[in-house]
């Protein structure tokens, strides 16, 4: 993977202060090369890189408040406060950032409570935020996120849960006991990101061969590829080409 270029994201790890943003330089993915083309101009980036760090203020709007209230009622205010670290409403979608200790309590309530009824777990996947700028890249920050998309067929609503863990301790409780469909999703997430789902009945690789080393969709895992020679010129593999960010 090419270097992400110079990034000077504001350190927002202290809290949820107003996003001040940062800048990213080096459009070609290089720095200090004397590139005067102008393409290396400053680009404004969010303080958290790809991860938004702030929490949306109440009211969230629409049915988001209804679901949030019902969830808090179902699990109890104290548990809700401990379980949900942040709530983000963005582009008409709501995301709950959840502490992994309380994930199963929350998910069970989301599925079973009459006012919530998220019967279908549409998708479970991972995102690796390593190198996306912002404080998420500092050591010890949880860079691996597990993202759950839940669908309520009764109320026709969709919500997203997000659990963040570190590479050193990539353990998340498995929801496959609550949503059997999560079985393969979690195996794929384990296969690609190395996130271990505790309590999964058979957490093995699913897409890669059983004896594969490494977790291919982590950002520090190279894309691979071989240079291609054509008419005497050599084209490097995609992840070592000069590229824009």
């Amino acid at each position: 993977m090419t270097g992400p270029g110079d990034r000077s994201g504001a350190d927002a790890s202290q809290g949820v202060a107003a996003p001040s943003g940062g800048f990213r330089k080096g459009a070609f993915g290089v720095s200090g090369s004397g590139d005067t083309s102008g393409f290396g101009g400053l680009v404004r980036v969010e303080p958290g890189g790809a991860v938004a760090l702030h929490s949306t203020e109440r009211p969230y709007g629409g049915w988001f408040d209804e679901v949030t209230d019902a969830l808090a009622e179902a699990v109890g205010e104290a548990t809700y406060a401990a379980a949900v670290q942040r709530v983000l409403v963005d582009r008409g979608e709501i995301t709950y950032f959840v502490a992994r200790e309380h994930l199963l309590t929350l998910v069970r309530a989301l599925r079973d409570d009459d006012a919530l009824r998220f019967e279908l777990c549409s998708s479970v996947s991972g995102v690796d935020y390593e190198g996306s700028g912002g404080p998420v890249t500092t050591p010890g920050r949880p860079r691996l996120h597990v993202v759950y998309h839940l669908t309520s067929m009764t109320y026709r609503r969709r919500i997203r849960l997000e659990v963040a863990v570190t590479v050193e301790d990539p353990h998340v409780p498995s929801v496959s006991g609550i949503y059997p469909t999560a079985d393969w999703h979690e195996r794929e997430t384990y296969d690609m990101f190395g996130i271990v789902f505790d309590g999964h009945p058979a957490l093995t690789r699913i897409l890669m061969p059983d004896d594969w080393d490494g977790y291919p969709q982590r950002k520090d895992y190279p894309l691979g590829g071989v240079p291609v020679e054509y008419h005497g010129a050599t084209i490097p593999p995609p992840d070592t080409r000069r590229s824009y960010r």
Partner: protein
Amino acid sequence: MTATQDPYAGSRETTEGRVYTVTGGDWDQTFGSDLTGEERLVVNMGPQHPSTHGVLRLVLDLEGETVTKARVVIGYLHTGIEKNTEYRTWTQGTTFVTRMDYLSPLFNEAGYCMAVEKLLGIEVPQRAQTIRVLVMEINRIASHLVCLATGGMELGALTGMTNGFREREMCLDLLEEITGLRMNHAYIRPGGVAQDLPPGAEQSIREWLRVMPGQLAGYHQMLTAQPIWQRRLKDVGYLDVTGCLALGVTGPPLRATGLAWDLRKIEPYLGYETYDFEVPTADTSDAWGRFLVRMAEMHESLRIVEQALDRLEPGPVMVEDRKIAWPAQLSLGADGMGNSLDHVRHIMGTSMEALIHHFKLVTEGFRVPAGQVYVPVESPRGELGYHVVSDGSTRPWRVHVRDPSFVNLQATAAMSEGGMIADVIAAIASLDPVMGGVDR
């Protein structure tokens, strides 16, 4: 020849008794005088097998002909498309995702592009939306026909296969005329579609609309009314609504349980709420119901195509914003879709600014504000969801595809354990998994 002489088909002693590995040949030759006791067989079916719907591997435990355990092994077609998109621009992503579920390429493109557009906060022009609906519904018919064709072939109805691919070819001819390619079109792009309908396309579609109902009726004559076909499908691969929800199964298998869950009606996109069509359901929860649902859906898709064609108004097919819209117009030559000579003349001969603009947008691409979205569309196989994350740069940070084939295939064990081995084939065919989408 005794078993021990064959290096690939020997026998060995285990704690559970003697285990034989059989690669073919006569029973007597393999087992000799050992042919006594229990008959537990572990059969490895696939990944190269004409009945497994692609490179799918099944490990089946058999007692006689009854399946006691079915395990599904996937990953033989994993190509790392999700990872690859992270190294390309947003527009190039279309070219990758269209190759995932190769029988419904336009749904992949539409889902991906709608996710990118939601991240950008833009709305595509009306004509582009209508064209998207038009090509997707043609694609849905083509996909359902392949399901019928390969499903029929796997059950021994070889004419179903030849006929299915014949009608599918009519659909692909249309898509080729519109997009330039039979498959892997990369036609739907962030911001609209790659090019307008070519002259004569409307006439071809109308002709196709005139012919198709008669062709589809032929399937009812050939398959629906046929006793063998009925017996192979009825009460096979049973999965009720509870099982579907627990296992995340969507699409025709879910609608065959009686639940009219179709995202085109539930969460309409691209103006689907303005089209007049029904969501066909069945109440049998078996392979037969899924067959009937698909047959009925093809007729509904024809209705949608006709309505889309009627409401096509002249207008742009790409967003006005020149910072996002692809600068080059493609044109259809004798050898397929390629560069527009007019455009090349414009940027190379008359306008330096146009050349710079073209260069910037084509090599660097546009930036997409940071954030994440999940956009589901109703593909021929169920909920096709795109979870797309941006870090604010010119390339996707992460593209995850919730592929319906991947999820639906989990139901294999629930549908086939306790049944006959021959019914495993019918059950899997009724799920219509496409391994390109399963393994990505």
